[in-house]
């Protein structure tokens, strides 16, 4: 990938206005040391000889041939948006449709904490660019219900909440148009379809509903329509007069259409052997395909799986401990951007628990061998590296809820853990997980590594498939028909199983 694309993913963005075809000349960058690709013709046209001698290049034309150092003197203003690294995704194999008038389309995965989106030319079947950014609604509360509560308390603010999230989405789209195409208005005119998946609360908000449906017990196991009531003013506010804005309905009270997208992304019903899927987060969703039906449920993950909810928790940001390993006499902390550790993100915390459990500092019950109000400091000189008792507790409850749910679905389908051909871990949380460590504490079941598949951004991929597949409606209908929503509160043995899984030990067959 070009230096520009790499920087877009990293978040230190060069200025850009043409989509990386060297016509705008805005993405100048200075090479400091290392081996680089040669100057291109466009660079000769855009950069003076004097500047070329100083090592000034166009980042969109520049490729690295070794580790290198570059200097961005004039970066783009800080932005909520970064590019997603989708370079490993295989291309979809769909026929090219005939869409001359409005070839552009947008896929949106609207999450509780993040928004992910990609911009497509459906005519050419090419992804022009992708983005992810924070969902500005995070400010209103860390979990979905808090936000719904806020919303219920101030129903007069509903409209503005809806505006906040819609505004965030269009900002992401405009960021792509400005940087990756170089035109905005004329392109917005030609957007024919926006497909939005998300969790139930976000779907309710973005479509301008108050979310009160989620509180109704009769909706917990049923599909929830999320039809926007003000489509034309929505189109207007986005300046997309020709766009069909499609909000994919939630599957049930706590199962959003993001999970439907996950399942479509991994083609789960195409498998001939049993497959399980888990998407960890504030709510953790679990699916089991047994060849005939798709059992689906949701359990509270709480903030433990988001990092931010721990006492010493962070998002995956600079200073976050993303991994822990054992050195000779101490713990080795892998800190993002190699800074002084400021706390744990989820993957680092999972590692810490596994290592402390293995060396006996944390007992089976989750208690410390030597309890201390300060917790256990991985780096004795840095209190922000402390694993706190309360955080272990939150983790235990989250992982027990997940494991017990997996076990319940397996029992309902009369399938043993070792009969699973694959376990898919979708969502951001799984991507950076040390799977062996995750198995030590029973966060994920003990099974061969080759059976475990990681798929970050799966919901966006499923959303893209809905956007591009010619028989997309048929596919979603098929999935909706095969899905059986399991309400775990109907099963008394779930409680028992939850309590058993609180122990910090591997999750093995027939525990």
């Amino acid at each position, binding site marked *: 990938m070009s230096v520009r694309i790499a920087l877009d993913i990293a978040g230190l963005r060069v200025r850009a206005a043409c989509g990386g075809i060297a016509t705008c000349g805005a993405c100048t960058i200075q090479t400091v040391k290392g081996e680089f690709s040669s100057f291109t013709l466009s660079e000769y046209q855009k950069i003076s000889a004097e500047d070329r001698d100083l090592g000034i290049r166009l980042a969109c034309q520049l490729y690295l041939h070794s580790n290198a150092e570059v200097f961005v003197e004039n970066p783009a203003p800080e932005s909520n948006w970064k590019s997603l690294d989708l370079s490993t995704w295989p291309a979809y194999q769909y026929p090219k449709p005939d869409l001359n008038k409005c070839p552009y389309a947008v896929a949106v995965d609207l999450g509780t904490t993040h928004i992910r989106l990609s911009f497509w030319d459906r005519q050419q079947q090419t992804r022009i660019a992708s983005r992810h950014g924070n969902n500005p609604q995070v400010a209103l509360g860390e979990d979905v*219900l808090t936000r719904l*509560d806020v919303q*219920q308390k101030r129903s007069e603010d509903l409209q503005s909440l809806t505006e906040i999230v819609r505004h965030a989405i269009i900002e992401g789209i405009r960021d792509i148009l400005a940087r990756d195409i170089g035109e905005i208005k004329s392109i917005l005119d030609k957007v024919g379809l926006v497909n939005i998946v998300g969790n139930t609360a976000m779907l309710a908000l973005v479509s301008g509903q108050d979310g009160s449906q989620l*509180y*109704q*017990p009769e909706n*917990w196991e049923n599909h929830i329509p999320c039809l926007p009531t003000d489509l034309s003013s929505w189109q207007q506010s986005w300046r997309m007069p020709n766009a069909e804005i499609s909000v994919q309905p939630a599957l049930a009270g706590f199962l959003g259409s993001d999970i439907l997208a996950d399942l479509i992304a991994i083609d789960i019903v195409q498998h001939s052997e049993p497959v399980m899927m888990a998407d960890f987060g504030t709510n953790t969703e679990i699916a089991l395909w047994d060849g005939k039906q798709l059992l689906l449920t949701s359990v509270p993950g709480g903030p433990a799986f988001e990092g931010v909810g721990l006492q010493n928790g962070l998002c995956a940001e600079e200073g976050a401990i993303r991994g822990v390993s054992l050195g000779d006499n101490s713990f080795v902390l892998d800190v993002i951007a190699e800074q002084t550790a400021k706390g744990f993100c989820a993957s680092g915390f999972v590692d810490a628990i596994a290592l402390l459990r293995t060396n006996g500092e944390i*007992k*089976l*019950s*989750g*208690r410390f061998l030597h309890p201390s*109000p300060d917790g256990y400091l991985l780096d004795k000189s840095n209190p922000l590296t402390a694993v*706190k*008792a*309360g955080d*272990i*507790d939150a983790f*235990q*409850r989250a992982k*027990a809820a997940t494991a017990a749910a997996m076990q319940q679905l397996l029992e309902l389908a009369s399938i043993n853990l070792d009969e699973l051909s694959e376990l898919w871990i979708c969502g951001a949380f799984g991507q950076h997980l040390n799977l062996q460590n995750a198995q030590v504490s029973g966060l994920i079941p003990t099974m061969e590594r080759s059976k475990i598949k990681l798929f970050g951004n799966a919901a966006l991929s499923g959303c893209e498939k809905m956007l591009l597949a010619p028989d997309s409606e048929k596919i979603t209908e098929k999935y909706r028909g095969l899905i059986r929503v399991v*309400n775990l*509160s109907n099963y*008394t043995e779930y*409680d*028992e199983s*939850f*309590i058993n899984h*609180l*122990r910090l030990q591997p999750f093995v067959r027939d525990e």
Partner: protein
Amino acid sequence: MFDAYIKDYNEAVFEIDKDAALEVVETAIQQGVTPEQVIFNIIIPSIEEMMAEIVENADTNLAQHFLTAQIASEITEKMLAKFTVPPEVIGRVIIGTAYGDLHSLGKRIVIGCLKSMMIDVIDLGVNIKAEDFVDAAVAQDAQVIAISSMMVHTATGEDGSLRVRSILKERDLENQIKLVVGGAPYRFDPELYSKVGADSWAADGVTASKKIKQLILEVKA
């Protein structure tokens, strides 16, 4: 004479080692302790000690709470089966979660504690309508209805405790059936219970059992 047993038993339960806890109890019985004494002189004091530690500890460990209540409840059941005379039941409680609320685990802890205190519990489960609470209490001759809510809207909503109170009033049952509530929202606002029409509330399982016992005795007096 029970202190040593309590200490060993507590250690086992704290380490959530059910087998070791059972072994302590079995040893006690072999050494002449009666099943009644096991419950009243070992298990109940031990639960109280544990709850005290859990409550006092700033890093409240809910996982520990669930695990210990589960073990205590199982052992109590085992001991009850060994009682020479059927245990004298103090009274009866109808318990369930509020309509619209599926969170069953808090209720579970309370059930374990109530059983250990010789209070009969009928668990209606989760998502229970107000009418069903009252109908069950009347049919089963219970003195107390206990409603668990883990979400603010199920604690304060029209279909929960408030509705039970108004039915009790309508049917003139307020003197013979008391209403108690519990769950996270009540911990945040200790006055909330009275705003939703309840007679009492408690922050943990042991306190809940004690308050319920007191209410049962008041009704029966």
